[in-house]
């Protein structure tokens, strides 16, 4: 019981830090509330989908920005727009915020600005992926120890 309590405490503290540091917002909490016995791995599965989408979209943006013959900013913007939607849907606040700035640079057809944002969004995505994987590992440890996942408001 002591081990479970310790792990649950760690989980709560880590979740709180992710929200405090802006990695996640309330939308992620809403998703966790949707998880139940019928879909116990729902959040992990959705996060995996999001990571796959992210990588695909970031690659699309990078390819579009590499074009020597002239950048198709509409194409870049389409990928950023999509990433903004999926990041806001999962509660990935810092990724979403970079996308907002990124779209402004696309609209201004500012390649340097876009490249900086691409670097930032790649960085934020990597950070978030690592942090969520840590959170999910904690979840697994709690369950393996016979405990339940605390709901963090």
């Amino acid at each position, binding site marked *: 019981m002591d081990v479970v309590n310790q792990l649950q405490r760690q989980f709560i503290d880590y979740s709180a830090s992710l929200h405090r540091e802006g990695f996640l917002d309330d939308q992620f909490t809403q998703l966790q509330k949707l998880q139940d016995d019928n879909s116990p791995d729902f959040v992990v599965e*959705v996060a995996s*989908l999001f990571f796959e*989408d992210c990588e695909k979209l970031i690659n699309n943006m990078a390819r579009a920005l590499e074009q020597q013959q002239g950048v198709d900013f509409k194409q870049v913007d*389409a990928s950023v727009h*999509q990433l903004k939607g*999926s990041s*806001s849907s999962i*509660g990935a606040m810092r990724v979403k915020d970079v996308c907002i700035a990124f779209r402004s640079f696309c609209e201004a057809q500012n390649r340097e600005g876009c490249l900086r944002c691409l670097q930032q969004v790649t960085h934020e995505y990597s950070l978030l992926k690592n942090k969520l994987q840590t959170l999910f590992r904690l979840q697994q440890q709690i369950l393996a120890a016979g405990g339940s996942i605390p709901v963090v408001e």
Partner: protein
Amino acid sequence: TALVVDGDTTCRVLEQLLLRSYGVQTHGVDNGRDAVALIASGVKFNLIIIDMILPVLNGLEIRDMGVHCKMLGVTACSGESERQAFLAAGVDVFIEKPLDPEHLVPILRELDG
């Protein structure tokens, strides 16, 4: 029954799961062509949730097929001009992503009569 039309996998899965959590049966497609085919096959929907940026299809085209159910537009765009364009394209309500219970529940209550 609801139809979710969204090209983004993460968004579509989340929108469908949110609807299911309220007991709504859902179909999901990732493009306008498949949405048109599903509607043309005779499947009836009480609610359509449609992303703004889709190839092939917009709200007006769905309306032209004789679809009269509630249409809820969702988009990552937040500007007033996008809102007006979306409403002019045939949706009844426009929501900036993410789709959340605050916006969905009143619509579901209304549909429930």
